[in-house]
Each structure stands twice: as structure tokens, then as C-alpha cells.
């Protein structure tokens, strides 16, 4: 049997139910057999009951109202006031703002996606002019890889004309240094906007000597271009280097 001195330390927690199960069993077994510890445990129990019975319940009438009054009197921090102000509009302005932003985003995306098609329809006669588009792609690809410039004499009939086109290139000495995409401006003659750009390009290249005027340009694939140069009576076939 456990010693009384050890058990006395556990009597309070035993009364409170705060012991581990095996300790509860140990104390219970001891108390049954030990009158002194049983008496002390009874004292603790009586003391607790007396304290609970004797506890005066405070009169809390109006307590909650007094607390709310104190809360109402609290100074409100500036940040809190600003937050409350915006929160009060959260339902109206927030929803409107979100709708407006979504609408604007859709409009921008639509414009970005449709602009090339709109320009093509407006200035290029729609999708029924695929060679122009192909030629533009070829010109755009030009700076991406070195091209071999093959110049062959050929009859004008060798050039295929699907439309009157004009390309202005730097002087012949710079031919291998292919022009940047912006330097090759392919345009139909009906395109007044591109004509203006051509003029600007001609002006910008004037310092390098006379420009080569190409009256016809044909491309059946984005990587090959064929054009005729009436000044030299030459047909130029422009193909990229073949990678081994």
C-alpha cells in the first residue's frame, strides 16, 4: 500500500479529477483502507462545497449595458475609421469596379486579337490575298537566319506575279547583310499607308547610295522570296542557308 505522505499530495487532484487513471485507482484504493486520508479528503470536499455555497453571486444588472457604453466611448483609430468607410461602400463600388475592370480587360483582349484581321480586311483585301501574307512572313523571318542570296538572270516570265509589289533594299554591296524586318516593307500598291513607309525607308537609306527598286516579289513559302529587279533585268531567288 502506498504511503500516506505520498497519497496526501494526490488527494486534492483526486478530488478535482485531475489525476491519470492509474493514479486515480491508486488513491481510491488507499482511501478505502486509510481513515486519515479518507478524513482529509472529506475535509477538502466539504471545504469546496462551502466555498461554492458561500460564493456571493454579484448583481450584474446593467453590466452588459455598461460595457457597451464603455465600448461606444472608445476613441476610434484613424485606420479603423478609414477601413470602415471603405467597407461601407464595399458592396456597391466594389462590384461596379470589378465589372468595369472585367469589361475593360475583355475589350483590350478583343482589340489585340482582332486588330491584325481588321487591318488585313481594311487594307489588304481580306483573306483572299494569301501571297501578301506569306511574303510578309518571309520578310519577318529574314533577320532570324542568314540567307544566301542567289541572283540569276531569268526572263521576266520566270517571276510569278500575283500582285504588283515593291521592295526597297539597301545597295547591292550590303545585300548579304540582310535587311532587318522593318527594312523590308512589302506592300501592295494600293496600300497608301505602306507607301508612306516605303518613302520613309527610301529616305533613310539614301545615305548608302541608290536604292534597288524591285517591282515584283513573289513568295510561295515563308522562307523563300523571288523578285525581279527591272533595273538590272535580274530575277532574284532568296532562300535561307540549308542547315546540315
Amino acid at each position, binding site marked *: 500500500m502506498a504511503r500516506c505522505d505520498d497519497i496526501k499530495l494526490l488527494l486534492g487532484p483526486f478530488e478535482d479529477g485531475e489525476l491519470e487513471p492509474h493514479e486515480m485507482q491508486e488513491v481510491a484504493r488507499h482511501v478505502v483502507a486509510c481513515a486519515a486520508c479518507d478524513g482529509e479528503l472529506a475535509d477538502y470536499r466539504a471545504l469546496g462545497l462551502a466555498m461554492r455555497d458561500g*460564493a456571493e453571486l454579484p448583481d450584474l444588472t446593467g453590466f452588459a449595458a455598461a460595457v457597451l457604453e464603455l465600448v461606444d466611448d472608445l476613441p476610434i483609430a484613424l485606420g479603423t475609421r478609414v477601413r470602415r468607410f471603405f467597407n461601407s461602400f464595399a458592396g456597391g463600388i466594389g462590384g461596379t469596379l470589378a465589372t468595369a475592370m472585367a469589361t475593360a480587360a475583355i475589350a483590350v483582349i478583343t482589340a489585340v486579337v482582332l486588330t491584325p484581321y481588321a487591318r488585313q480586311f481594311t487594307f489588304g483585301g481580306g483573306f483572299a490575298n494569301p501571297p501578301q501574307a506569306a511574303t510578309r512572313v518571309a520578310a519577318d523571318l529574314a533577320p532570324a537566319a542568314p540567307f544566301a542570296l542567289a541572283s540569276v538572270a531569268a526572263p521576266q516570265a520566270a517571276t510569278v506575279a500575283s500582285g504588283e509589289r515593291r521592295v526597297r533594299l539597301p545597295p547591292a554591296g550590303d545585300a548579304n547583310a540582310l535587311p532587318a524586318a522593318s527594312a523590308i516593307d512589302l506592300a501592295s500598291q494600293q496600300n497608301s499607308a505602306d507607301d508612306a513607309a516605303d518613302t520613309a525607308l527610301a529616305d533613310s537609306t539614301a545615305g548608302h547610295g541608290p536604292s534597288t527598286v524591285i517591282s515584283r516579289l513573289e513568295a510561295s513559302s515563308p522562307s523563300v522570296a523571288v523578285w525581279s529587279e527591272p533595273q538590272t533585268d535580274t530575277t532574284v531567288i532568296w532562300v535561307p542557308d540549308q542547315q546540315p
Partner: protein
Amino acid sequence: MVERYQRRVVGVAQAVVHNQDDAIELAQETFVRAYENLAKFESRSSFSTWLYRIAANLAIDFRRREGRHLVLRGEDAENEFQRLPSPRGDSFQETARGELNRRINGALGELTPEHRAVILLREVEGLSYDEISDVLDVPRGTVMSRLHYARGRLRSILKDLGGS
């Protein structure tokens, strides 16, 4: 929320300051503080424990500031409790409730504020050892030792003054 916790909060404050009027004022201050710091509440403990801890801290600060806690020593204590009966037996049962309450309160006044707070939180407010540990910010072992001492001391005082 106030009505739900007000009685317990007053009880916690009263366990520390041992004065009902002061406890009610401190309890009101407790709810105001809780309202102001609600955003800081973390769910590491229950809301009620958090609230009781605020009350206990306010009460401890109040006690330190005001120095109002009652500690009867020597002859004062003997005069106060000279007719206190034993907590067991017929005489204890026959004592009028009001008189009993007065004597128990007097015996509690004999304890240090720390021991009194612990035994009141346990016996009157019914807080568990872990809750008392959280509220008073002391280890659970300290709660157990303080309770053991407080119970033994109260039992001894009541028996001695009972003359049995």
C-alpha cells in the same frame, strides 16, 4: 458575448482582488480590452480562457497598484476566526450560512493572493488545472502545489479556529 461570460469574468477578477465591487469594474474593463484586442486573439487557447486571462492580468495589476488585498495576520486573524467551527461535523452544518460565508472569506483572506486566486478559480469558478495555468500564466505544477498548500492551510485554519 458579455452576458455569456460576465459572471465567470467577474469571478476570476474577484478571485484575485477579493472585492466584488472592484471585480465588477475590472470585469467591465476586461470586456473593453477584449473588444479592442479581438484581432490579436489567437486560437491557441479557447476564447473563454483568453478572456479570463485578461481579467486575471487586469486584476493582478490592480492589486499591485492599489495594494488593497486583505491579508490578516496574527491577532487580527485569530479575532476574525476565533468562532469558526470545524468544516466537518454537526457544528459546521448548524452554522448559519451567512456566518459561514463570512468566516470562509476571512480564512481566504489569510492566504496569499496567489494561493487564494488559485483555490477560488478551482473551487468557485470550476476551472481546470490547465485553464488556471493559462489564466494565471503559471505552470501546471505550480497550480497543483499552490492548491495543495491553500487547501491544507484553509483546513488547518478552520480546524484550529473551530476549537475542535
